[in-house]
Structure formats: C-alpha cells, structure tokens
C-alpha cells in the first residue's frame, strides 16, 4: 500500500519555485530520508504533505487523502514534529500529552495508558509532572517525537528532528524511530546529518527544489561511486545553482 504519492508536486512563491515537480511513492512502514542543502525545498515539500501549505500544481495524496482538498482528513492521520520545538513549555510533560491526546480524540483511559508506556520507554517517570521548560534539549526532542506518534498516526513527518542534539541522544532518537517503523508507522524525515541518512530505508536528495536522486543508501553509493552518503551528497549538492 502506498501511504504517500506525489506526482509533479510544485510550490511557487511568486516567481520563486521552491519545490519543482517532485514525484515519488512511499511504502507503509518505510523510513524515508528527505535530504537536501538549506533552501533546497525540503521543509516546503513537507509542509505540503502535512496540509499546512497548499501546493501550486501537481498531484499528491497522503494516507489516501488529497493534499489539495482533504487537508483536514490528512491531519487526522499524521504526526508532525517541526524544526522549531513546539511543545508548550509552560505545561508539564503529562499535560502536553493529555492535551494532544485529547485533541486527537483519544479516550482518557487510552491517554493514561499510552502516557505510562511513553515515559516508561524514555525512563523519565519522575519528570512526568515537571514543566517542559526546564528539561534538557535532548529530552525535549525525544518528547516531541514521542508526542508526534502518541496518537498512533499512519505517517509521521519529522523536520530536522536531531538538530543541535549530542551524538548519544541522536543514536537513541533513531532507535525510537526504528521502534515506530516496526509498529507500521511510515517515517518521513529530513536531516542534515549524512550518518543518519545511512539509517534510512530509502533516501531522496533534493537540489534546487528537484529530487535529483532517490534510492536506498547502498544503491546511491554504488551509483555515484562514493564511500559514504556524504560523498553522494557533496557530489549532488555541488550542482546547485541556488545558494
């Protein structure tokens, strides 16, 4: 089953084409790495799939719903973690999860149960009633991710989830992503870290709003004759006209 399909999806802001006719399909449970230099159009593309931004032309569906006309249905079936940390800092960990659980229509008992599991997995039971404001960044990021999959969405969109996080926390973060994928959640993740690209099932590399390469990390390395994803990325990113 295809959970995301895109065909010639384009977004223009005035005369500037941020996303220029991208096409691909995602399988259920796949971890899809969405790579590209700053300004390549990653976030814009992601916002279109999340129903936050209306595409200019092309076609796309997310979880079977059309991105032009059914944005609100899409929103019921996805989770989203933005670049900017977006939990409520003046609410406690538990209050944040209760709020978003409630927003997605989860029952109170279900919220309680899922929350217990979440803090148990993160090992932060004793901080459940701490204001989010006071937690270290690494934890906040893990919490933001846990929150984005709290309501068991079909797809989760992660926009540079590990920015500014130390290597150990990043490693743990990816373990959480694998857990989610094992449960059948499709993961759509943008990143700047090439080592993280290696963890993905498939990777697309965007240059100047277009998808220049899309394959498994191993095939890409072979095709571009590079030792690692960093080599592949550099090879493609050098062709960029935008800076």
């Amino acid at each position, binding site marked *: 089953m295809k959970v995301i399909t895109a065909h010639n999806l384009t977004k223009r802001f005035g005369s500037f084409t941020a996303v220029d006719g991208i096409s691909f399909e995602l399988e259920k449970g796949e971890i899809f790495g969405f790579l590209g230099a700053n300004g390549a159009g990653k976030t814009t593309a992601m916002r279109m799939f999340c129903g936050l*931004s209306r595409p200019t032309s092309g076609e796309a569906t997310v979880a079977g719903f059309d991105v032009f006309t059914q944005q609100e249905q899409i*929103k019921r079936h996805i989770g989203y973690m933005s670049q900017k940390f*977006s*939990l409520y800092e003046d609410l406690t960990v538990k209050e944040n999860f209760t709020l978003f659980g409630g*927003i997605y*229509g989860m029952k109170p008992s279900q919220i309680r149960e899922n929350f217990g599991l979440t803090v148990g997995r993160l090992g932060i039971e004793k901080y459940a009633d701490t204001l989010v404001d006071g937690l270290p960044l690494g934890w906040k990021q893990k919490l933001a991710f846990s929150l984005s999959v709290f309501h068991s969405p079909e797809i989760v969109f992660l926009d540079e989830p590990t920015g500014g996080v130390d290597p150990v926390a990043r490693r743990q973060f990816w373990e959480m992503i694998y857990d989610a994928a094992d449960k059948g959640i499709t993961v759509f993740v943008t990143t700047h870290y090439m080592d993280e690209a290696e963890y993905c099932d498939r990777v697309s590399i965007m240059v100047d709003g277009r998808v220049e390469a899309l394959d498994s990390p191993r095939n890409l390395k072979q095709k571009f004759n590079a030792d690692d994803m960093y080599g592949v990325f550099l090879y493609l990113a050098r062709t960029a006209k935008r800076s």
Partner: protein
Amino acid sequence: MMLKYLIIKEFKQIFRNSFLPKLFVMMPLMMIGVMPFAANQEVKNLNFAVADHDRSTLSERLVNKIAASQYFSLVAHCSSNEAFRLIESGDADIIFEIPQGFENDIVNSRNVTVSVAANGVNGTKSALASSYISGIVQDYSSDFQASMGDIIKFDIKPYYLFNPGLNYRVFMVPALMVMLLTLMCGFLPALNIVGEKEKGTMEQINVTPIGRGVFILSKLLPYWAIGLFVFTVSILLAWLFYGIVPAGSLLTVYVCAIVYISAVSGLGLVISNYASTMQQAMFLMFFFMLVFMLISGLFTPVSGMPDWAQWIAAFNPLKYFIEAMRMVFLKGSGIADLKSHLLALGIFATVLNGWAVVSYRKTE
C-alpha cells in the same frame, strides 16, 4: 470534548504566567481606584496673582472673595509687570487686575471694568479659570446691586438631571469599566494567539484536526470569564470607593457587557490573524485603541466633533458601549432603551467574528 482539553490548557497557562494574574488584580484597582482622580476635568488650585491698583476696602473684599473659593489660591499681590513675570515662570496661572478708582466708581454707580489675563498654554485650564473668576465677579457685583436696591436681580439656578452634582466620577467610572473590558477581552486573547504563532506552537496546532471555531473559542472563553470577573470586581470597587451603583438593573449592565465583549474580542482576533509577531499586533492595537478612545466620547462629547469624526465614531464599538454604560449607570435605562446600542454592538460582533473565522487559515 476537544474544547474542554484546550480550555483547561489555557487556564493553566494563564495562571502559570508570572504577569497575567497580577494584571487581573491591578487593572481594576488602577482603573477604578486611581484613574477617576487623575482623569478629573475639574480644575482646582489655580494660582492667581493680583495687581490691585486701587488698594481700597472694596477691592480687598473682591480679592478675598476669589481667594476664598476652593478653585483659587492667591500667590502674590503685586504690580502688573511682576504678575506677568509670575505667569512666565509658571508660578501663576491667571492675573487679576483691578484698576485705579475701582471703589470710587462703584460708590458713584459708574461702570467698572476689571481685567483677567490667563495663561493659554493649557486651553481648558485657562478657559475654566476665567469663567470661574467671572462668575465670582458677577456674584460680587450683584451683591452690590441688591444692596443698593435699584436693580432687579436675576439668578439662574440650573438643575442637572441624572447627575445633580455634576459629579465627574459618576460620569467617568462607567467609561473606565469599558476600557477595562476592552483590554481584557479584546487585547489579551489576541496577544495570546500571536504569542503561539511566535513560539511555533501554532503550527503544531494547525497540523492537528482541531476545527478553527473550536480553537478560537478555546482562546476566547477563558478571557471572557476572566473579563466578566474583573468587570464585576470593578463594579464592586466603584460602589466601595465612590458609592456609585448603576441606576438601572445589573442585568442590563451585564447584557451590554457580554454583547460588547463578543464584538471587541472579534476585533482582537482579526488583528491576531493578520499580525505574525507580537510587535505588529501591539502596534495595530495601539493604533486602534488610540482612535477608539479619542473618538468615543470618553473625554469629549461625540456630538461636538466635526462630521467626519462623527462618521468614524459611528464605526467605533467603544462609543456605543460607553454611551450604553453611562445611560444605565446614570439614567437607569433598561434594555428596551438601549435597543439601538445593542443592535449596533451585535452587528459589530457578527461581522468581526465572522471575519476572524474566515481569515484564520490552518492551511496557507
């Protein structure tokens, strides 16, 4: 259901804020406890200098009569030149000059002219000062005429309806309550929404299936509740401090308040939808607030404004509510008397809130 979770969240955030709860206490205290004294248009303690060129018993009596009034205090008995110098230095607001031969003229039943010179830098103050003085002088002269018995004395005794003492506070307090509601229910929820935009939590909300109306209601209801609470506190304070109670029914007061609240929060929401930063929102609100306040009849009557300003006032929700509040508090008007005011406010509420819902976009 969703609404319940969101409202709980709002209340928690409001009361965890280090500033807002203090504001809810300080605002009514300031507005009702302090502002009526400061925003008082009565002029008292005017400093006057006397240049008495006659130095007679009668001129002395006139000066004493002025100095005895609560509006004036005598700062100097001096020459004309010196008196002008006092005005320049700001030590005197008004000069009262009595010509030579004052007593002589009166005794011989001749016309007498005294002169008053007022510092016009503050126009209101000087106009009031000279009218007070001429009142006193008139009084003085009619005393004479009466004692001489050759002139019939006319006296106008005005009777002021609804506010017999022309008490300035009775007139200002209801209007200040309006300001209070405007700030609490118009500005705070709007700033709150823009705050969420700035922090990035708004995007997280926009990516969930929350309906637009539900989200907006979740922002408004808490501030409406708090606004009405603060409004009630200010009604109590007005009664405690000044003994001001509405002449009409409290029910009428609250009906007007609720209709007004929905209008003014609609305005706040529209602003919040177009502003993307707190700074923009603040400036927009400041602009609207200034125009609304000055063209609302809060300080100066709308009927005395030029036609174009009266046209602007017709689109000012503040004007209708201030008028309505003064009518209920002073005249004791009921809902039937306020039909046109309520209708106008209702139209504002409908248009502004409709605009707010339409202009709020979860998808750009």
